[in-house]
């Protein structure tokens, strides 16, 4: 935690002036919600899965960085226009690369990520089976 905070502070100092013009006030939608609660919920859900590119491991939904604010405004605008979250994510990925999404699409690159838990369960069950004795009606349970 401490490390992230330090680095976020450092990065914010170095990177923000390059990526956003600090003289401009932040866009309204960077810090206020959409009027329609359903759209806002949709936008919120999407923002939580988008990476703040100048932060250390934070989503744009919970970052003070200016760039995160700009991205929040952008997401809310596009959702308000009626775009689907998947479209907005695709648009951002085209601009910033896969790095921007915390919810990477299933691909050859991410397949091991999803397969490993399943493999672990399978391997675990195989190992566990060895621990179980043969059904023996003469064994009586012991009172806990």
């Amino acid at each position, binding site marked *: 935690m401490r490390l992230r905070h330090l680095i976020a502070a450092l990065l914010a100092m170095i990177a923000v002036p390059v990526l956003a013009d600090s003289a401009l006030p932040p866009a309204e939608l960077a810090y206020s919600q959409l009027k329609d609660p359903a759209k806002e919920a949709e936008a919120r859900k999407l923002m939580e899965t988008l990476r703040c590119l100048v932060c250390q491991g934070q989503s744009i939904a919970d970052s003070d960085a200016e760039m995160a604010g700009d991205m929040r405004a952008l997401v809310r605008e596009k959702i308000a226009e009626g775009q689907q979250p998947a479209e907005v994510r695709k648009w951002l990925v085209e601009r910033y690369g896969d790095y921007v999404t915390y919810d990477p699409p299933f691909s050859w690159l991410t397949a091991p990520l999803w397969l490993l838990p399943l493999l672990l369960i399978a391997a675990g069950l195989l190992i*566990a089976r060895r621990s179980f004795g043969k059904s023996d009606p003469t064994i009586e349970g012991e009172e806990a």
Partner: protein
Amino acid sequence: MIAEAGLAALWLAAGLALVQLALGWGAARSGSAELLAATRRVSVAQGVLAMLSFGVLILLFLQSDMSVQLVAQNSHSEKPWLYKFAGAWGNHEGSMLLWVTVLAMAGGGVALVERRIDGKTLAATLGAQAAIAIGFYAFILIASNPFLRLNPPAPEGMGLNPLLQDPGLAFHPPTLYFGYVGLSVAFSFAVGALLTREVGPAFARAMRPWVLIAWVFLTIGITAGSYWAYYELGWGGWWFWDPVENASLMPWLAATALLHSVTVLATRDGLRAWTLMLAVVAFSMSMIGTFLVRSGILVSVHAFAVDPTRGSFILALLGIYIGGALALFGARVSTVTQGSTFQLVSREGALVLNNLLLSVILGIVFIGTLYPLLAQAMGQQLSIGAPFFNKASVPVALVLVVATMAGPLLKWRRDRWGALGRQMALPGVVSVLAFAALAALSGSSDWVALIGLALAAGLAVASVLPLWKRNLRRTPLHIWGMVIAHVGIAVSIAGMASDAAFKQERLVALRTGEATTVGPFQVKLADVRPAIGPNYSAMQAHLDVTRSGGAPFVLFPGQHYFSSPVTTTSEAAIKTMADGQLYTVLGEGTGDGRWQVRLWWKPWITLIWFGGALIALGGLMAMIGRLRRERRPAAGAEDGE
């Protein structure tokens, strides 16, 4: 001069660790009582010297000795004494020294108190503990010397980052380190037992208190760290699946599995090989966590490549210790028989399921944390975050909750499906009714969170059922510990699920005098005015809050501006009520006379940390109960509890 004394103590401790390794090796081979006694004494001396060295470092920080580079870089003569004190471990070198000091203390502790396991295994254990220590002493002495002098001395120190000047954070790292490094004892016990092939109930009973105490420290450290992140980061989040957080979660998951499997080994002489494996894995996770945090690799693979000395050093140590232990395990596992077998429907069966599911969650966290680094090393950019971790681990965790309900209700060795069904009827009905009520009345469509709440209700009921028809006065302390820890899990899950399902958010820009609502609250921005703190200037908002049908109150969230280094922090103002927290944050001015205000109503969220505290308390009670029970001479045999 005292800095040199600290360095000398560290060299001596490292030397003694070598002696300890040699003596332990000899004692384990020969079984000589004299050699074992000598190993014990050297272990204690090594612990004392490491503590002395760390004490010297604390003294240097308290004295603000600016001729020591580490002090000059990380402290300031006008800092409050608490942050001078905590500054000793608020940096790389100091925290590594604390790490190895805890390691040496743990070894010394084992040497002092351990009388239960056979001499050869104990000697091998102390030797293994020394072997770990040697690597980390070498790391500190070669690549991270905390006692380096500065010539000429600095006129003044550079100060500690203002964000780190928080009383909660001052004691967060030592708490986690006691947990991380406490697991080294389990690791060394496992290595010792593999070397002498003495794996059985006595060994498990000797190892168990160490696992429990390390686990209690880890639980406290993680819970406190989560609360710190919650109030300090200013967006109401309490867990971020950040690699540094995951680094502390992984040893906790492994230790949780270990403390359950070690009970099977102690009580039923089952799961021998698996318990040894978990003991190795648990401390390996601690070391991997240390590597992740200390090598700079999390910033990026490239940052690691620019200055790879420290990172490569720790990586090499990881390879030696983890690889060595796994190789030993592989070589010896065939000679360690699996121990007693048992039926699928039995206490052991439920604990195996517990271990399996915890291991799967551990695997998910492990691959999710390391995969982006792996991808980056192969030239691919990839972000793994909350969506992956939640999707992959929450379903497993919910099944684990059901297993936690059933486990304590089952008999050892063998039980019947019918009996299990009768026992589970009440918690099952509670869960189903809770879910039906929530689905009908709550208005939330977050089904996963509602299932979590319903299962938490069932778990709370199931957890106290083992006390049913017992004489509560005569119920052993470790049973109480289990009950309280399991209730704590239910409480904590209820808090997490409630936050997910019911939190309300309001993000607005307000002029002074304007009001808004969030949940049942009406919040008015009465005023925003500048303020001056000891080492920062601030803007502070005055919020007038009324809850429908309740007494009004005020909150003062603010923004703090620090000049060295230039940092702005949001200081959330949080009102804690019996049924949740109102979380308020003042953001920046918008340039047209309005202020950003962020408000969250978080029903029952405090249960997350309250539950964490209960879990730690339960672990502590279990440890004390076990130790007291084993002190009694008649309690040689476990009575199946």
